[in-house]
C-alpha cells in the first residue's frame, strides 16, 4: 500500500471539479423530491392517495422501486430510486476511469515503476469512490434535515455506490481495455436493475438477488432497518477483495483473458466507412441488445399496471380527471421511453466522441494523411452516432411491443410502440449534432456534451417539481418530444428538432474541415 496517500491526492487533483459536482447534485436530489412532494401533496390524504395509486402500481414500482409509506420522506425515497441507479453508474465509471483507463493509456506503468505498492492504485481508486459515496450519504441527510430516516436514505445511496465501485474494480481486472471493462460493469448494473424491477413488479422475493434492491429495502422513513446495509458492505468487501486478488495475479496492462491473434491482412477494410464500422460495431451491438432486453423486460411489467388500473376505481377516476383519454399503460410506456431517449442520446454522444478519441490518440492522423478526406472520415462516425440511437430505440420499441403485445394478445402493439420509440429519435439526434458541432468548432470542449445531457436529464427529472418556467424547460430538446404512445403528435416540433440536429452536424463538419487536426 506504499504510496497510497500520493495516489489518492493524484485522483483528487484530477477530479477536483467532477467529483464535488456529482456528489453535490446527487446529494441534493432527494431533498428536492421531498420539498416538491411537501408542496404538491400537502395533506396526509393526498399523499396516501398518491402512494396507493400512482406510486404503488407494479409498473412504477418496477421502474423506481417499492413504496413503504405515505410520508413525504417515504415518497421521496421511492423517487430517489433513480438517484440510486445513477450513483451506482457513476461509481462503476469512476473506479474504471482511475484503474483500467490509466493502464490502458500507459500512465499506470509510469506510476507503478515508482515506489508504489502493488495494491495501491486499485486501493486509491476505491478509497476515493467510497469516500465520495459516504460524503454523498451524509450530505443527502444534511440537505433533508438530519433524522434517522434521512441518514438511512443517505447511507443506502452511499452503500449502493460502494457496491458498484467494487463491481467496477472487478470489471477493471478482467478485460484488457477500458471500453470493455465499462461495458462489463454497466451490464452487471443493468442486470441488477432488471432483477430488481422484475422482483418489485411481481412482488416476489426475486429482488433480494439484486444489490440495487438492498439500498431500498432499508425502508427509510418507514419500517427502518439497517440490516441490508450490512449485506451491501459484505458484498462490497468481498468484491474489492476479489479485485485485489485478481490484480496481483495478472500483468500490468494485461487482462485475465489473453489477447488472441488476428488476421494477417484484410480485404474488407476498404475505406473510412469500413474502418468506422469496425470501431463502432461493438458499441452498436451492446446498446441495441441492451435496449431490446429492457424493452422485453418492461413490456412484460406493463400489464401489471393494467391490472392495477382495472381493480382500482380511484385510479381510474384520477386518470379520467387528468383526461386526454391517455391510459395508464400508455403513460407508463411513454415515461419509460422518455428515459430511453436520454439513454439513446448518451449513446449518440458516446459514438460521436469516438471521433475525438481517434484524433487525440493520434490514430486519425495517419488515416487523414492518406487519400481520405476529412469529411468522409468524420461522416463514417457520424452515421453511427445518428443511426445507432435510432436502431437502439427501434429495439426498445420492438421489445416493449412484443412482450406487452403478447400479454394483451395484440401484436399490433409492435409497430405502435416502435413508432412511439422512434418519435424520441429527433431529440436524441440534437445531442449527437451538438457533439459533432463541438468536435468541429470547439474540439477541446467536446466533454461539455455530457454536461448538457446531464442538464437535460435534470430538467426532465426535477424541472416540473421545481416549477421552473416553461421557457427554461423548453431548453431541453426532450421537452418537445410528444408523449407517445397515447399523446397527440404534432409534426412541427419533431421537424424542428431534426433540422436543429442537421444544422449542428453540418456546422461541426464545416468546422472540422477548416480547423487544425490534433489540437
Amino acid at each position, binding site marked *: 500500500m506504499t504510496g497510497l496517500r500520493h495516489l489518492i491526492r493524484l485522483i483528487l487533483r484530477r477530479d477536483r471539479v467532477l467529483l464535488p459536482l456529482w456528489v453535490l447534485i446527487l446529494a441534493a436530489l432527494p431533498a428536492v423530491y421531498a420539498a416538491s412532494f411537501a408542496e404538491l401533496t400537502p395533506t396526509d390524504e393526498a399523499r396516501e392517495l398518491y402512494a396507493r395509486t400512482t406510486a404503488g402500481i407494479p409498473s412504477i414500482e418496477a421502474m423506481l422501486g417499492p413504496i413503504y409509506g405515505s410520508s413525504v420522506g417515504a415518497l421521496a425515497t421511492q423517487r430517489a430510486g433513480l438517484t440510486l441507479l445513477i450513483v451506482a453508474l457513476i461509481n462503476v465509471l469512476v473506479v474504471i476511469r482511475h484503474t483500467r483507463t490509466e493502464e490502458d493509456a500507459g500512465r499506470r506503468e509510469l506510476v507503478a515503476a515508482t515506489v508504489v505498492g502493488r495494491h495501491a492504485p486499485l486501493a486509491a481508486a476505491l478509497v476515493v469512490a467510497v469516500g465520495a459515496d459516504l460524503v454523498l450519504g451524509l450530505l443527502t441527510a444534511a440537505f433533508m434535515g438530519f433524522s434517522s430516516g434521512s441518514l438511512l436514505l443517505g447511507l443506502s445511496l452511499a452503500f449502493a455506490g460502494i457496491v458498484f465501485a467494487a463491481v467496477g474494480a472487478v470489471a477493471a481486472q478482467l478485460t484488457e481495455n477500458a471500453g470493455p471493462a465499462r461495458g462489463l460493469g454497466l451490464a452487471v448494473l443493468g442486470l441488477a436493475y432488471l432483477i430488481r424491477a422484475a422482483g418489485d413488479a411481481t412482488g416476489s422475493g426475486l429482488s433480494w438477488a439484486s444489490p440495487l434492491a438492498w439500498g431500498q429495502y432499508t425502508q427509510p422513513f418507514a419500517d427502518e432497518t439497517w440490516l441490508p446495509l450490512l449485506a451491501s458492505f459484505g458484498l462490497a468487501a468481498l468484491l474489492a477483495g476479489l479485485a485485489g486478488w485478481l490484480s496481483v495475479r495478472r500483468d500490468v496492462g494485461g487482462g485475465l483473458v489473453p489477447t488472441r491473434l*488476428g488476421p494477417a491482412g484484410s480485404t474488407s477494410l476498404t475505406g473510412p466507412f469500413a474502418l468506422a464500422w469496425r470501431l463502432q460495431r461493438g458499441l452498436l451491438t451492446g446498446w441495441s441488445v441492451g435496449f431490446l432486453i429492457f424493452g422485453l423486460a418492461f413490456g412484460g411489467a406493463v400489464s401489471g399496471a393494467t391490472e392495477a388500473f382495472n381493480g382500482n376505481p380511484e385510479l381510474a377516476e384520477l386518470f379520467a380527471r387528468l383526461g386526454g383519454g391517455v391510459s395508464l399503460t400508455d403513460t407508463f410506456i411513454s415515461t419509460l421511453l422518455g428515459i430511453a431517449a436520454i439513454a439513446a442520446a448518451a449513446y449518440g454522444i458516446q459514438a460521436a466522441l469516438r471521433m475525438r478519441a481517434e484524433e487525440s490518440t493520434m490514430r486519425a492522423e495517419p488515416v487523414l494523411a492518406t487519400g*481520405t478526406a476529412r469529411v468522409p472520415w468524420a461522416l463514417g462516425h457520424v452515421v453511427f452516432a445518428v443511426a445507432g440511437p435510432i436502431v437502439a430505440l427501434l429495439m426498445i420499441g420492438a421489445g416493449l411491443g412484443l412482450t406487452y403485445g403478447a400479454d394483451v394478445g395484440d401484436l399490433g402493439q409492435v409497430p405502435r410502440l416502435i413508432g412511439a420509440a422512434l418519435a424520441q429519435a429527433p431529440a436524441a439526434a440534437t445531442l449527437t449534432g451538438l457533439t459533432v458541432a463541438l468536435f468541429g468548432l470547439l474540439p477541446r470542449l467536446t466533454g461539455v456534451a455530457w454536461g448538457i445531457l446531464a442538464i437535460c436529464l435534470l430538467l426532465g427529472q426535477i424541472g416540473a417539481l421545481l416549477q421552473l418556467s416553461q421557457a427554461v424547460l423548453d431548453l431541453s430538446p426532450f421537452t418537445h418530444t410528444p408523449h407517445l404512445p397515447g399523446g397527440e403528435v404534432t409534426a412541427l416540433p419533431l421537424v424542428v428538432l431534426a433540422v436543429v440536429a442537421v444544422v449542428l452536424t453540418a456546422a461541426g463538419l464545416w468546422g472540422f474541415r477548416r480547423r487544425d487536426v490534433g489540437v
Partner: protein
Amino acid sequence: MENAILVSGLHKTFGRTHALNGLDLTVRTGEVHGFLGPNGSGKSTTIRVLLGLLRADSGSARLLGGDPWKDATALHRRLAYVPGDVTLWPNLSGGEVIDLLGRLRGGLNPQRRAELLERFDLDPRKKGRAYSKGNRQKVALVAALASDVELLILDEPTSGLDPLMEEVFRECIAEEKTSGRTVLLSSHILAEVEQLCDRVSIIRNGQTVESGTLTDLRHLTRTSISADLATPLTTIPGVHDLVVDGTRVRFEVDTDRLDDTLKHLTAAGVRSLTSQPPTLEELFMRHYQGAAR
C-alpha cells in the same frame, strides 16, 4: 518538377507558443533530405503543415507542386507518412492496419508487403495493443514502404527499432532512393543521417539555421589541429582555443581559414601534424546548443 517540397517563411503559433518562426525548407525531387533539430524545434509541426493537418498562419508551402492544405487528398495519394509515435487501433491486427492504410493511399504492392514483413521480421497477426513501440513503428513503415508513392515523409521512423532493424530500414531507404523516390527524413540518429541523406536542414526554435549537403555544413565548422613545430609559436592568427606546450600546439580553426593557418604553420616548420575533421556530433551540438535556452 525540381522541388518536391518548397517551404518559405512558414509561421505557426499555438496560443502563445511560436512553433514555427519563418521556417524555410527545400527538398529536391529524388533526394533523401535529413530534417534535424532538437526536441520541440518544430519538425513535427512542419510535417503536419505539409500534410495539411495544420494550417499555417503565414508563409508559403508547396508539396509535389500542389497546395498542402487545399489539395490535401489529391497529394496524399502520392505520398506515404510514418508518424514519430505510432498508435494503432487496439482491436485491429497489424496486417489489417497495413492493408487499410495502403488501400486508403490507393493500393499497395502485395509482393513488396510480404517481402517487407519478412525483412522487418513482423508478425502481422498480432493485435494493435499487443505490439511493442518498435513493432508498431514497423507496422507503419511496412504500410508506407509497400505503397507505390513518390514521396515518403518519415518523422523519426527508427525511434524504438533495434540496431538490426535500423540496418534493414537503412537498406530500404537506400533502395527507395535508387528507385527515384524522394524522402524527407526527420531523425536524431546522426549515423543514419550521414549514411542516407544527400542534404540536410537543421532547424531550431522554428527557424532554419543551416541547410545544405553535409560537406557544405562541414565547411561551416571547425577542424581540430594538433602539431609539433620546429620553432615554437606563441600566437597563430585566426584560430580558436589555442594551447601552447613548448613546441606543441593545439587549436581549432574555421574550415574556410584552414589554408591560411597551414601556411603559417609550415613557415614555422612542421614535424608532425594531426588534423581532425569536424564530427557530425560537433556540428549538431554547435547548432543545437542554446536551443533550450
